[in-house]
């Protein structure tokens, strides 16, 4: 019996069209638009201005608080302007626009492919360097990594868990990273273990990736304290709470963070970025993006520089299909529908999913038949039908009582509902309102 998390979950069709496609580096774009808000926390402050010459890897915006991140230039060239542009959020937000000239990298970056296994940095140095390199969670949440690695006083950490699960359908970037950069990920894991001062690391991988499980297990045997945990395919296993439950059977109490149960979770892509930052002095400015969809002619995994316009990736995947109805940034369960193909790739862009017209719209809305399927699939043990109704009727105290803030917005409820009810839409509305009420109460 394969391990998995204990409550709920669904199994959407996997559709991993780009599985096995080797990571392909895209040609450098002629112009990049680098948003200053690509992470959870305060937007960064630009440290360059119009007309400045920049090199690849040069700091162009600095972290503006503890929960914030540095941003580095993905190309060499001249800063064209700093302006508000349409980005993946659907709104116009500030970005640093650079016109590319050549591909000149910062001299400190080690561009060779050799595996550097010697680790000389101390725990504090690693955490500091991770912060300096602008590393954020590459699973899509973009939480600043150095904050996660800074264990608050009073809490202890005894295990590092890596997310190699990639539970969203269609996406295959992490799968390819594990197959092609397994050794680097292992060294990255060791770096994280030193940073957190733990002796145990578990890499969770779903068993629809048997080659990754085998490859990583073979590699792990060469390193101390790292084990691979194969997991039963179930969405949303990649969610921190669910992953920790699945790997070590500990459930984070309501309202708390993983450190409460002694664990820290990082995505395998983030781990690779940590390796590159510490061992190669390379800050975060590019990432692997899966471009896929039923009608996409060349579904692929591209290595793209942050700030590259979406249409360049779509063209490299065979162009925008005729029957396109929806373009999603991320996976189909939690990704965001985009409004244009001109928006730039950011640190959090795990994938671009192009959906054909026929499946771009929702089914016909029917009344709730109280089948309780939403309750049985909720991974947090909530009652989506109830949370949705009280949010619709603005009964905020009831919503808070029923733990609406525990919702991880995975979408399993809306996915399952036979009546096509927009459960998550109302729950998100409720969460926003209840969160506001809770914050004003604490003032």
């Amino acid at each position, binding site marked *: 019996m394969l391990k998995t998390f204990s*409550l709920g979950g669904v199994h*959407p*069709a996997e559709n991993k069209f780009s599985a096995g496609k080797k990571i392909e580096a895209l040609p450098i774009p002629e112009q990049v638009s680098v948003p200053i808000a690509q992470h959870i926390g305060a937007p960064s402050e630009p440290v360059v201005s119009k007309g400045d010459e920049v090199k690849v890897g040069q700091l162009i915006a600095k972290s503006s608080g503890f929960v914030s991140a540095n941003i580095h230039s993905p190309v060499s060239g001249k800063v064209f302007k700093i302006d508000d542009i349409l980005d993946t959020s*659907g709104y116009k937000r500030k970005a640093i626009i650079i016109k590319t000239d050549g591909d000149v990298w910062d001299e400190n970056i080690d561009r060779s492919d050799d595996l550097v296994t010697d680790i000389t940095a101390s725990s504090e140095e690693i955490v500091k360097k991770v912060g300096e390199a602008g590393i954020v969670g590459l699973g899509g949440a973009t939480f600043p990594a150095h904050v996660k690695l800074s264990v608050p006083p*009073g809490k*202890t*950490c*005894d295990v590092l868990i890596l997310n190699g699960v990639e539970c969203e359908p269609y996406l295959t970037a992490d799968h390819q990273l594990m197959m092609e950069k397994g050794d680097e990920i292992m060294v990255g894991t060791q770096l994280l273990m030193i940073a957190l001062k733990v002796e145990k690391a578990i890499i969770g991988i779903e068993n629809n990736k048997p080659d990754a499980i085998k490859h990583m297990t073979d590699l792990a045997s060469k390193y101390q304290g790292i084990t691979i945990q194969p997991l039963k395919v179930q969405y949303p296993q990649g969610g921190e*709470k669910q992953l920790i439950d699945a790997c070590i*059977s*500990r*459930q984070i*109490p*309501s309202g708390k963070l993983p*450190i*409460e*149960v002694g*664990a820290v979770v990082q995505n395998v892509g983030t781990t690779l970025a940590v390796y590159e930052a510490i061992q190669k002095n390379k800050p975060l400015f590019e990432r692997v993006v899966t471009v896929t969809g039923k009608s996409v002619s060349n579904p692929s995994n591209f290595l793209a520089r942050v700030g590259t316009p979406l249409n360049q990736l779509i063209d490299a995947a065979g162009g925008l299909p005729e*029957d396109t*109805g*929806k373009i*999603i940034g991320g996976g189909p*369960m*939690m*990704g*965001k*529908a*985009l*409004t244009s*193909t001109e928006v730039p790739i950011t640190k959090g862009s795990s994938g671009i*999913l192009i*959906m054909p017209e026929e499946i*771009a719209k929702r*089914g016909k809305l*029917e*009344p709730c*038949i*109280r*089948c*309780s*399927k939403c*309750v*049985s699939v909720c*991974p*947090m*043990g*909530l*009652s989506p039908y*109830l949370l949705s109704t009280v949010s619709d009727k603005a009964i905020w105290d009831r919503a808070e009582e029923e*733990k609406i803030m*525990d919702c991880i*917005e995975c*979408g399993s409820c*809306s*996915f*399952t509902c*036979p*009546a096509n009810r*927009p459960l*998550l839409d109302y729950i998100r509305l409720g969460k926003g309102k209840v969160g506001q009420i809770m914050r004003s109460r604490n003032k």
Partner: protein
Amino acid sequence: MNMLTVSPSPHVHSGDSVKKNMYGVIIALLPAFAASLYYFGIGAVIVSLTAVLSCVFFEWAIQKFLLKKETSIMDGSAALTGLLLAFNMPSNLPIWIIIIGSLVAIGIGKMSFGGLGNNPFNPALVGRVFLLISFPVQMTLWPKPIVSQMHYLDAETGATPLSVMKEGLANGETVSALMDKIPSINELFFGAMGGSAGEVAAAALLVGLIFMLLKKIITWHIPVAVLGTIAVFTGILNLVSPELYAGPLFHLLTGGVMLGAIFMATDYVSSPMANKGMIIFGIGIGIITVVIRVFGAYPEGVSFAILIMNGFVPLIDKYVKPKRFGEVVKTANA
């Protein structure tokens, strides 16, 4: 470029629908329907057809003329109510009585509360109990199995195992003597007994249960809770006094217990939303059924038990919540 749809996540759907679930239950009822055709022949056909058609007609008519809104008869729920109502009737019930039953089931049991999703009581049972109380004679004349295949209103009738047991015990006869008078356990399992059109064949109903479990239409909690409770309660009674109280197998295989536990108590709208709540619901149904059967005036108690527990569902849903993530706290920092 085409217009892009921009809607909130999730952007995919399981493909499940109300229709799929309703028709799934109807398919699960087909083995029991086949059994009813075998035992009760023409009568079963007439009763089933009449009930289904009149239920669908009344839902359509009420929605079109009284409520003036779009019809929902295509979702299969009215047809399902009709089929379940038919399975709860004797196969020689006159057509006009069936039609009245359908009107009550759909009109009062379902539409008066606001249609599908709003009915607190199982509509088919509302119809059935109304008929039982209004037409007690016609609703308790049970055609004999097999011999009534080619008959409808003139079908030969006889007592059901439940009524034999009930009256016999009231007359002071012992359980073992009475068990000899009724069909064997084997025959009871396959349905060779008098009873409602759809309730007789436990084997066929169980096949339907397995189908629904595999198709994830229902979960095991309610049927297991109802049947388990009935088995345990009657088992205890039987152990205490074997000649006064019939044993679990008898009670599970006679009357409407199988049909009730598998198809009636599991009605989505009138049953609880959390697994724990479903078990409490099922236990309540089991206890009330046995109390009515053993200590009450009626030989059969399942319909009343389910309707009574339906009334408790809002209370159950309010206080019995699903198991929450993080309730059992195992921490390194606690």
